[in-house]
C-alpha cells in the first residue's frame, strides 16, 4: 500500500488552487454576487429616500444585510458544480480526510466572495453617508464575519446540494443562523460611530468565527455524505 503522498497542507492547497483556478476562468461566479451586493445597497436610498441622516443611520444594517444576501447567492454554487459532474464523489472517496477538503473549499469560497465584498464595502458605505468613525469597524466586522457566513452557509449548501431548486430552501435554512453575526456586527459599527470601544462585539464575532471554523466542517462533511447517498 503506497504511503499517501501529500501532507494535509498540500491537500488543502491542492483543493484551494483548483477551486480558485476554476472560478478565475469563469469570472461570472465572482462578479455576479458582487454586482448583486452593489445593487441591493443601491435599492435602499431609492426605497427610503436620499436624506443623509436616515441613510447614515441605516448604513451598517444595510451593508450587512446586503452582504448576507449576496453571500447566500454565491453559496448555491459551492457544491452544486462538483455534485453534478461527479467530482464530489471523487472527493468523498479520497483517502484524505473530508475535513480538509471541505475546509479548503469554504476558504476558497470566502476568498472569492467575502474578500471582494470587504474591499468594495467602503465605497458603498460612503454612498450611504456612513459615519467616518465606523469605517474601521465595518472593515473588521466584515473581515471576521464574512468567513462565518461562508462556513455556516456551507452547511446549508451541503444539505441542499441534491435538492432540485434548492436555492430558496437554502436561504430559509441559513438566514436564521446568520442572525447573531448580523446583530453583533451592526452593533459594533454603531458603537464605533459613537466613538466608543467595540472590542466586545468583535471578540464575540471572533468567537463565532472560531466555533464555525472548527465545527462547521464536520457538519458539512456529514451533510455531503447524506446528500450523495
Amino acid at each position, binding site marked *: *500500500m*503506497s*504511503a*499517501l*503522498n*501529500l501532507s494535509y497542507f498540500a*491537500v488543502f492547497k*491542492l483543493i484551494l488552487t*483548483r477551486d480558485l*483556478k*476554476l472560478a478565475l*476562468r*469563469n469570472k461570472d461566479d465572482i462578479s455576479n454576487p458582487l454586482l448583486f451586493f452593489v445593487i441591493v445597497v443601491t435599492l435602499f436610498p431609492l426605497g427610503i429616500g436620499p436624506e443623509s441622516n436616515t441613510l447614515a443611520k441605516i448604513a451598517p444594517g444595510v451593508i450587512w444585510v446586503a452582504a448576507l444576501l449576496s453571500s447566500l447567492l454565491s453559496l448555491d454554487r459551492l457544491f452544486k*458544480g462538483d455534485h*453534478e*459532474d*461527479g*467530482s464530489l*464523489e*471523487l*472527493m*468523498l*472517496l*479520497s*483517502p*484524505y*480526510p473530508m475535513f480538509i477538503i471541505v475546509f479548503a473549499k469554504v476558504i476558497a469560497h470566502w476568498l472569492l466572495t467575502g474578500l471582494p465584498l470587504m474591499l468594495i464595502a467602503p465605497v458603498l458605505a460612503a454612498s450611504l453617508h456612513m459615519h467616518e468613525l465606523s469605517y474601521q469597524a465595518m472593515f473588521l466586522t466584515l473581515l471576521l464575519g464574512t468567513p462565518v457566513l461562508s462556513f455556516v452557509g456551507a452547511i446549508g449548501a451541503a444539505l441542499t446540494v441534491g435538492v432540485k431548486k434548492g436555492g430558496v430552501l437554502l436561504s430559509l435554512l441559513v438566514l436564521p443562523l446568520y442572525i447573531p453575526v448580523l446583530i453583533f456586527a451592526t452593533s459594533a459599527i454603531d458603537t464605533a460611530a459613537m466613538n466608543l470601544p467595540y472590542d466586545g462585539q468583535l471578540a464575540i464575532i471572533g468567537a463565532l468565527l472560531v466555533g464555525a471554523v472548527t465545527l462547521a466542517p464536520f457538519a458539512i462533511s456529514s451533510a455531503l*455524505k447524506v446528500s*450523495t*447517498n
Partner: protein
Amino acid sequence: MSSLPLLSAKKLTCIREQRILFEHLDFDVYAGELWQVEGPNGAGKTSLLRLLAGLSQPYDGHVEHNGNNITDVAEEYHQSLLYLGHQVGVKAGLTAEENLSFNLALNGYDASAAEAALQEVQLLGFEDALASHLSAGQHRRISLARLWHTQAKVWILDEPFTALDKQGVAKLEALILQHIDQGGCVIMTTHQDLVLAKSRCQTLKLEYRYF
C-alpha cells in the same frame, strides 16, 4: 494468498424511496475474481456498487474489506479502492491534464504521471484542451486514465465501456484481465457483452422487486 475475501457484502439491504431494492445480500469477492452485476434497469445495480464503494450507507448490513468493516477502515479502504461511477468527475473548466493530475493527487498518487496516463487513453495532444471543448467520450477516457496508474486492489466500475470505441473496449478488457491476474478484483456492470474477459467473469443477478 489471503483467505479473506477482498470485498464482502454481509446481509446488505438497500431501500430507495421506500422501495426495497435488495435484502440480506451476502456475497464475497476474492482476489483474482471478476464479477459482473446483471439485472434490468432499476434493479439496484448502481446502488449495489455505490454501497460496496462506501458512497451510500445501507439500510441494514455492512460491507467488509479484508475482514474489516469499511466504515472502520475508511482511509485504508479508500486507498485500495478505485470507483468509476456514472458521472466522470471531469470539470469543464479545467484542461484534460489538470483534471487528471487533480484526480491522481487526490487519491495519493504522483500528479506528474498525468501526461503518461493520458497517452494510454489516446489523449496525448489533448492535454491542454479545456474539458469543455472535449466530447463525452473523451471525458470518459480522462476518467479511465486513472486505471493505468493506480495501486488500488478493488476496482468498482459502473458501465466503464460507455462511449468507448471497439479498440478502447478491447484495451480496457485487457487491462481488467491484467489487474485480476495480479491479484486485484473487479466488480462491474455493463450492458455490453464481454469478449476477452468472458471466460473469467462471474455473474451476480439482481431481480427487479416491486416492493
